[in-house]
């Protein structure tokens, strides 16, 4: 037994035409009581939009849809595989199924899609539509309504009010469908242009029907001009057209209405208009896209302005603000880069459309219709608008560059402030140290006075008042004044003795405090790496740290040295060099409690050794110190 899946699909569709009208049972959730003014016979809905494509995106789409595979058709979902290494996955979200009908790997693909998006309770939708995607970015979705609350099932008459609900549904569902098969790049573009609300993007709508009925009027007597009544009929048509522009009575007896975002064609011979309508829809779709593109450009100009205002209004930058400005600037940059990438696609689309508009001239029997649509003029306007985008994008890039420069200059100013603050702090610390020194001298004087005071108090306490008289009698022939002077001199001697003792004691304490000598020799120059390694091999290296990246190989070595040339001192050495670039950065020497050793001596000895071993050329001492 052989199974032909295509046959089954067709059979089901044929069944739908007869079964569904009964099964749907007029289910809807419309709150309003609709006034039926226009009924359409065998309505068809066509929706057009523009999305930047190009050959590579086209090939990618064909691969995604499995166009080249023998067995066509697949279920599609918007779910992303977050665990690529897992062997299985679960999902209950299958949005649509597609079946490729015709394709050219680099040029176009034509497929039918059935969408299964969740609807409100009681609502039954069997939504199948055809999708045509061309490499020039034009996308056309189309469907024939088989059943929709039809007033007369046999005649396939459907009210325009109900069709507008289907239009709303299809506009959103077609967005969801195409987004599941577009590349990430294209989805990102749509997300940026439509401010993360790309599902609700506007598209150009076309409603086609073979005939119409007017329950409140005689359809046969109605001309296109009668529908432009400024009242009920015009309002009814505006639900599709948005803004009624003009109407045309077709030679075969049909009607045509053109609006700002839609068209309605009522004709039994609608096939002969379809090529023209398709081209017009592509131009109109591109027009809608460009309008949103322009709006996005203005929004980005605004974002730049806001960032600039923020920077100019603040007194000083802080870490949080810097981070927020950087984030905003990088977002603007990213969006500009993505928008810029659209420009070549736009140019290709314009060239392709130009050819299509010119091709229509061959349809001389349809000239009245092409002239009515004023398509050439419409296209030329669009062509000029898209050319203007180049200039605007360049201006936007200059704008964002200017904002970036303000940010850089503010950051530099901030860095300078930081350096100044650090230097100020150092100066302040030096002042504190000097003040401390002065206080130390003052304390020494106070010490001296205190010692004197103690000495005098001591002498006075020992000898008391009569002592001067007694000494005077004993040694200076009763001259008690000379006795008192002798006591004063004695007190002075004791004062000097105590002061000297205190001074010595403090010196002793001071000597016991730890001292520290630090010499940082910034070499920052090329070195003979073999000789340097030879020099280091002679040392007893204790610590080795290595940092490797593509361009550098930094070595950080530490060792201790002592010996006759350093006296009784032990020196800690830290040396940093880049082995890959043969570059010696610096030599840091630290001495704890240095004894009879000076900074100059350390530099002289270390440098002499390096020069003697031909590691680095001779350098002046001033060049080496900070």
């Amino acid at each position, binding site marked *: 037994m052989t199974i032909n899946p295509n046959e089954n699909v067709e059979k089901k569709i044929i069944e739908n035409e007869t079964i*569904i009208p009964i099964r*749907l*049972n007029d*289910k*809807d*959730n419309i*709150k*309003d009581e609709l006034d039926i003014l226009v009924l359409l016979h065998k309505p*068809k809905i*066509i929706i057009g939009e523009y999305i930047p494509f190009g050959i590579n995106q086209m090939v990618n789409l064909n691969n995604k849809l499995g166009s080249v595979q023998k067995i066509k058709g697949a279920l599609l979902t918007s779910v992303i595989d977050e665990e690529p290494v897992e062997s299985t996955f679960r999902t209950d979200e299958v949005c649509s199924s597609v079946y490729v009908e015709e394709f050219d790997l680099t040029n*176009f693909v034509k497929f*039918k*899609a059935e969408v299964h998006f969740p*609807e*409100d309770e*009681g*609502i*039954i*939708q*069997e*939504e199948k*539509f*055809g999708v*045509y995607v*061309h490499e020039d970015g034009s996308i*056309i979705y*189309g*469907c*024939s309504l*088989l*059943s*929709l*609350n039809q007033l007369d099932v046999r005649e396939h008459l459907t009210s325009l*009010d109900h069709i*507008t*609900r*289907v*239009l*709303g549904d299809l*506009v959103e569902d077609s967005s969801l469908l195409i987004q599941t098969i577009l590349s990430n790049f294209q989805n990102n573009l749509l997300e940026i242009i*439509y*401010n993360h*609300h790309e599902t*609700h*993007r506007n598209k150009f709508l076309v409603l086609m029907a073979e005939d119409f009925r007017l329950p409140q009027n005689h359809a046969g007597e109605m001309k296109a001009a009668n529908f432009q009544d*400024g*009242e009920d009929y015009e*309002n009814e048509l*505006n*639900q599709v057209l*948005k803004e009624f522009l003009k109407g045309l009575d077709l030679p075969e007896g049909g009607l045509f209405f053109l609006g700002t975002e839609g068209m309605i064609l009522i004709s039994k011979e609608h*096939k002969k208009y*379809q*090529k023209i309508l*398709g081209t017009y829809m592509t131009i109109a779709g591109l027009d809608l896209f460009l309008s949103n593109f322009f*709006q996005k450009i*203005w*929004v980005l100009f*605004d974002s730049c302005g806001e960032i600039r205002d923020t920077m100019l209004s603040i007194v000083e930058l802080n870490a949080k603000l810097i981070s927020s400005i950087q984030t905003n600037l990088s977002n603007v940059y990213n969006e500009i880069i993505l928008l810029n990438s659209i420009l070549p696609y736009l140019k290709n689309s314009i060239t392709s459309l130009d050819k*299509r508009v010119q091709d229509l001239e061959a349809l001389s029997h349809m000239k009245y219709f092409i002239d009515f649509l004023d398509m050439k003029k419409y296209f030329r306007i669009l062509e000029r608008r898209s050319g203007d985008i180049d200039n605007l994008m360049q201006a936007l890039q200059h704008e964002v560059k200017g904002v970036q420069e303000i940010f850089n200059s503010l950051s530099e100013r901030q860095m300078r402030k930081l350096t100044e603050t650090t230097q100020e702090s150092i100066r302040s610390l030096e002042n504190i140290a000097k003040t401390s020194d002065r206080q130390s001298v003052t304390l020494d004087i106070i010490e001296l006075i205190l010692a004197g005071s103690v000495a005098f108090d001591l002498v006075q306490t020992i000898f008391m008042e009569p002592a001067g008289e007694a000494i005077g009698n004993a040694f200076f022939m009763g001259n008690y004044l000379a006795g008192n002077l002798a006591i004063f001199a004695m007190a002075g001697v004791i004062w000097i003795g105590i002061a000297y003792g205190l001074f010595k004691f403090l010196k002793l304490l001071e000597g016991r405090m730890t001292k520290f000598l630090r010499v940082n020799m910034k070499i920052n120059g090329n070195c003979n790496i073999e000789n340097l390694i030879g020099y280091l091999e002679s040392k007893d290296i204790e610590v080795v740290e290595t940092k490797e990246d593509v361009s550098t190989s930094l070595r950080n070595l530490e060792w201790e040295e002592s010996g006759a040339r350093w006296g009784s001192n032990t020196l800690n050495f830290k040396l940093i060099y880049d082995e890959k670039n043969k570059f010696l950065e610096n030599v840091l020497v630290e001495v704890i409690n240095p004894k009879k050793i000076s900074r100059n001596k350390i530099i002289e000895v270390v440098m002499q050794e390096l020069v003697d071993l031909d590691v680095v050329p001779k350098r002046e001492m001033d060049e080496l110190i900070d």
Partner: protein
Amino acid sequence: MDLEIAADQEFEPKILYLISKYSNVIENSYHEMELDTAELFIKELPLMCLIYEAIVRKAIDYDYAPQSILITNFRMNANISQEGVDDVNDMRELGLIEKLQLTTKHHTIINGYKITDKGLEALKKLTDEDRAPVDQIVYCNECRGLMELKIISQENKKKEDWYDLGDEEIKFVFACKENKTHKFFESSFLDIEDVSYCSKEFYLDNFY
């Protein structure tokens, strides 16, 4: 005052009454304090929302249909009444309301409407019976204060913290100015109605 109204200028006076409630001076009007210094206009989208509410609450016998609209800086589908839009244009032609066009910070163009003195005169003909169904929408049934129409989105939800927007992108909410935390109702203006239907794929003939 008699209005000379042509056949294509007929309008629903209840819409004029709605505009009067949210624009120029009228008894018990909206934002009374602000009116001392500046004229008050109602924006087009909130007006469309008011008309939609009037339709679904059977105050006006009009139709509406889903249409793509720009709210702040993004697109949504909303239930727009073309008859309502047409009435607004007719009322402008008759000089009953004035339109003010302005640009938003998102570079979109919006319209604001306010009733004129001529419009206020015309409203005097409206009976209490005509006004009652509109009053039921725009006045709080507890304190009888005028309801504010708030557009709450993810952008301004912190400012309107009395309302839990949840994961919704945007919502039109009627709230009692005096007691909005307790008395408010959500509009289904942005909820697009579903219909049951069945469709079959269709391709344009000879498209390329």
